């Protein structure tokens, strides 16, 4: 049995490992045109800023793949022929498989802005983008980053670390407030400005202007302002990368359509991770998850299904984390950016604006937790939410979840006090 996996990111690797655990003798080929070895995509920024070398971002030592008998193939797949179970590789012939997992991840959104293909315009997703950034920063003085999300702020931090000016265009009236509630979002606005970035809220990109030689020279915003720049970072979200499967007979919507065991409509073809769109019965929207953690979890389940097990993906309690310059953020459960009817919002923020906590309850049951500038225990928060603990219970046991380093100031007492008063 030969399993081919397209994409050596978090999902592809999680699947390969799981298949190997369950099927010691099957042949597994992990294919990527991007890199020889699996590396940590979220660590791209640290390579650029000089915190780590590329080699440091590889989660497994090179001998891991040999020991686990997982074949690595550096090639771009250009065609999937699922009727004959055959892949065409760019300049490297063909590869037959018995089962195929597509884990091609995401690609940066481009919304058809005038000038979006000029030199100096780029997203930040993969090593190709990182390499172009090396080219694009040469002699650059200012960058304009378009889109207030997680990747945008990383790209801003990277370019800023090279002593360049950064202007940040955010469509919303506060950074990332289509995900974060107002107060948390405002904490980040403050950080961005404190770091010396030019944050322009409620400002959209209208067009990108170029020079004769095809290079970017500036942008024009919807407010008519023209900003000179040599780099434009397009970080207005990502979409499932379905380039490879279009017109192959494999169904796609926004992503590659799969059931909750990651099967596509084509026999023995699976898709998981960022590129997959999980089809949901009934009125609910289909699910597309595009973070590292879900990629890993989806890959693991897809691996089980491919290896012959009867597994179904259970996303569990949502969680995510990020770091905005030096401000850490963790979220557990359901925290929506705007108040939802029937939900109760409790919010505490330290007067120095460096720490905050939000607890969301519904009928006095805790359903979501946000922390900024605080570290909380994943397992404890998840248990509280799963076991539907009451607000009182959570507040009385808050200390149990604190995960900050030793000797750090503890705010639990203050938070408990504040929230009890609010709830009363």
């Amino acid at each position, binding site marked *: 049995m030969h399993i081919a996996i397209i994409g050596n990111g978090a999902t592809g690797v999680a699947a390969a490992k799981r298949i190997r655990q369950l099927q010691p003798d099957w042949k597994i080929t992990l294919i990527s045109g991007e890199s020889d070895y699996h590396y940590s995509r979220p660590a791209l920024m640290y390579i650029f800023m000089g915190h780590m070398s*590329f080699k440091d971002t590889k989660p497994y030592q090179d001998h891991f793949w040999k020991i686990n008998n997982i074949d690595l193939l550096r090639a771009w797949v250009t065609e999937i022929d699922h009727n004959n179970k055959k892949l065409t590789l760019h300049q490297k012939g063909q590869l037959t498989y018995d089962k195929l997992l597509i884990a091609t991840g995401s690609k940066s959104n481009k919304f058809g802005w005038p000038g979006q293909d000029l030199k100096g315009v780029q997203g930040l997703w993969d090593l190709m983008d990182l390499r172009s950034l*090396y080219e694009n920063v040469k002699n650059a003085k200012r960058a304009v980053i378009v889109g207030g999300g997680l990747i945008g702020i990383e790209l801003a931090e990277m370019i800023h670390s*090279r002593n360049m000016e950064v202007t940040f265009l955010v469509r919303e009236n506060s950074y990332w407030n289509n995900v974060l509630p107002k107060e948390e979002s405002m904490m980040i606005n403050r950080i961005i400005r404190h770091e010396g970035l030019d944050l322009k809220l409620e400002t959209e990109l209208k067009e990108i202007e170029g020079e004769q030689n095809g290079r970017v020279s500036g942008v024009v915003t919807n407010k008519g302002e023209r900003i000179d720049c040599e780099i434009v970072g397009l970080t207005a979200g990502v979409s499932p990368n379905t380039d490879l499967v279009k017109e192959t007979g494999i169904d796609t919507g926004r992503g590659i359509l799969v059931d909750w065991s990651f099967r596509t409509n084509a026999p023995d073809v699976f898709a998981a991770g960022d590129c997959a769109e999980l089809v949901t019965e009934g009125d609910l929207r289909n699910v597309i998850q595009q973070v590292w953690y879900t990629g890993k979890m989806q890959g693991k389940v897809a691996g089980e299904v491919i290896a012959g097990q009867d597994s179904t993906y259970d996303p569990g309690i949502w969680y995510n984390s990020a770091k905005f310059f030096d401000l850490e953020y963790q979220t557990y459960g359901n925290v929506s950016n705007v108040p939802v009817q029937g939900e109760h919002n409790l919010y505490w923020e330290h007067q120095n604006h460096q720490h905050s906590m939000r607890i969301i309850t519904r009928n006095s049951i805790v359903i979501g937790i946000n922390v900024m500038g605080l570290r909380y225990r994943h397992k404890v928060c998840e248990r509280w939410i799963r076991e539907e603990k009451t607000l009182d219970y959570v507040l009385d046991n808050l200390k149990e979840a604190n995960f900050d380093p*030793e000797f750090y100031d503890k705010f639990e007492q203050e938070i408990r006090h504040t929230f009890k008063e609010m709830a009363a």
Partner: protein
Amino acid sequence: MIDAKTLEYDFKEEELGFEEPFKQEDVPLTTGEKISLGLVALGILAFVVQLLGSPLQGTWAGFLLAFILPSIGASLYFWLSYKDTVPGIKHNNNYYRSLLARGSLGWIAGIVMTGFYILLYWWPKYLEGGIRMTDPLSGLLTGGPANQWFLYGLLYTIAVTVFGIRMFMKYRHNRYQKIRTASVMFFQLGLAFIIPNVLKAFNQPEYYFSYFWPLKYDYLFPSSFSYFMQSGSGVGMFFIFWGLMMTFLATPVLTYFYGKRWYCSWVCGCGGLAETMGDPWRQLSDKSTKAWRIERVLIHAVLVFIVITTVLLWINSSTSGSVFGSYSFTLKKWYGFYIGAIFSGVIGVGFYPLMGSRVWCRFGCPMAAILGIFQKFFSRFRITTNGGQCMSCGNCSTYCEMGIDVRAYAQKGENIIRSSCVGCGVCAAVCPRGVLKLENGGTYKDRYEHSDKPVTAFLDSIRHI
């Protein structure tokens, strides 16, 4: 279809790596920074002038100019260069700096530091000029002239203090780092510099209360016992008592409660230097499993070496040399030369800019070996990981000075229980997702999957070697 530009991409990221990206000019140095660097330069100048035979040599003025002035200058520089930055992780450009990334400056620093140790151990006469400059302080503390060890102790203490200030500033958002740094600065200045020298002024043996057997290997040698006894009074007896207590009682008990860190990154002078002056080079430690294998063999071999040497010396002394004769003395000499001087000094510190700050602590120190055995099998200390939050970025492994591949555990959600971990806490500090935490847990249950009992866990682990 995949676009043509993507298909063209075939960068050899493994071979070529990523070079330093273009950078706009750095903010020019402030007047304060220039002045502080000027003080350092002035100090170096004063040092050289005195080496060439200025009458300042041996005077307080000469001492202050050559040692204290540049220390103040460097401390001031660190303070000024960090004070206006946003508190947080400060590792930008580490891999682009020649001095910090094994570039030519790094090699020069390694050679200079190694050279200093070689002179110190074998040709101290070339350090004579520097030694004489410390006479005023030596006179004040010990009542006598300085020797090369006084100069060494002074430079060591200055390095820990000045770079300790750098650590305070670099980690001023992190109280664990600040307290720990204050601790190593206190133990170096007080217990490893002032007290031993003042003891000399009172005609007592020069005793270091912060070093114990087997790191300070001769403290449990029979010859030291008789030497301490000779000092009359109760002081010598107390030294012997202290040494035995620390080695056989405090070490296991404190390690049980707090892990190896109570010593290695809070008290020890070698650790103190590694955590302060060595901090800029911590990322150079080798994280491969091959290095881990070498580490386990070497460090335990050194431990066996010193244990055998000590036991033989005692057998020899209690049988008046009738069993092993001079053989035990030969071992003692070899240990002192190969391990005490070459390994812990020349390689241990001289190689900071090439192999990271903990070469000796990781590969050689027998004290670390003992503490490590306790930590691995009988300690409540471990680093816990935060559920599924790890995204495998590798900052923790990169900045582990002991070369532990922290990420290998974190990405599986496993606790980190490694004998070599000195508990410096930097992995937890650099983690961008809040995944790691140093903890003194209450039970064995969360340390060992299969057993709640330390002895069973111990036997279990032996079975898995």
